[in-house]
């Protein structure tokens, strides 16, 4: 600590280490938040249900999505990434998950919403197994922090099914 440069270096190193420690406890403080998100999805309409030229089924849906994810936001949250996946079983695969829609929620105010939209991404099966198929719609979310670990969770909603014949 005998020169200006030596002291400045020691101070900067210690300051950055302390900053890392502060960010770690800020991330740890997220464990103490109460989270109770809720969501509801309705299928308003099946717009199209066809077997395409590549031999696979394709579905086009209109969804009504209502969700309240405000309790997921803490002081250490940068944004929440949310997406909806259709999950079902086929003889070929034990579990199929097809992502239908996603969004980025930047602030707490935007986290309580209700929208009606057609599926953002195409719902195409590996094969032609979708006639009369029962499936779950699962709302997944990833809470992205300002510092620290990212948490992901989901709500599974079951009871949806596709019609028995192509339209």
């Amino acid at each position: 600590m005998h020169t200006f440069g030596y002291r400045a270096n020691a101070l900067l190193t210690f300051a950055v280490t302390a900053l890392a420690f502060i960010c770690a406890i800020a991330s740890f403080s997220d464990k103490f938040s109460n989270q109770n998100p809720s969501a509801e999805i309705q299928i308003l309409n099946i717009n199209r249900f066809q077997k395409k030229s590549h031999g696979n089924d394709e579905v086009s849906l209109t969804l009504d999505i209502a969700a309240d994810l405000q309790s997921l936001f803490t002081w250490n949250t940068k944004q929440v990434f949310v997406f909806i996946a259709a999950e079902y079983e086929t003889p070929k695969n034990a579990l199929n998950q097809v992502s239908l829609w996603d969004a980025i929620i930047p602030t707490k105010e935007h986290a309580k919403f209700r929208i009606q939209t057609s599926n953002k991404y195409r719902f195409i099966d590996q094969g032609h197994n979708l006639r009369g198929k029962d499936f779950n719609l699962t709302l997944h979310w990833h809470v992205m922090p300002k510092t620290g670990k990212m948490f992901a969770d989901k709500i599974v909603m079951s009871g949806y099914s596709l019609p028995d014949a192509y339209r």
Partner: protein
Amino acid sequence: MDWKGQKLSEELMQILLLVFGGVAFITGYATSSFRTMMLIYAGAVLFTTMITVPNWPFFNRHPLKWLDPIQAEKYPKPELTNVISKKKKNKHY
């Protein structure tokens, strides 16, 4: 800076940063504002730099006592003798 001043500077730097770090975290957590925490901590780093890094006079309160010039003459520095030439002679077998 003298030795005691250096010790004071180092300890002061560590304590200031840790205490301000704690204050920054608690204030940020209480106001649910990450930005507040970062701003308080940045201010703390600047403040600590101002206090501990430059060579302030209060770091020099225990200056080192060098010997007086008369005492230095009593104990002169020893001179180098010709040890090198003896080593060279041993090499001629």
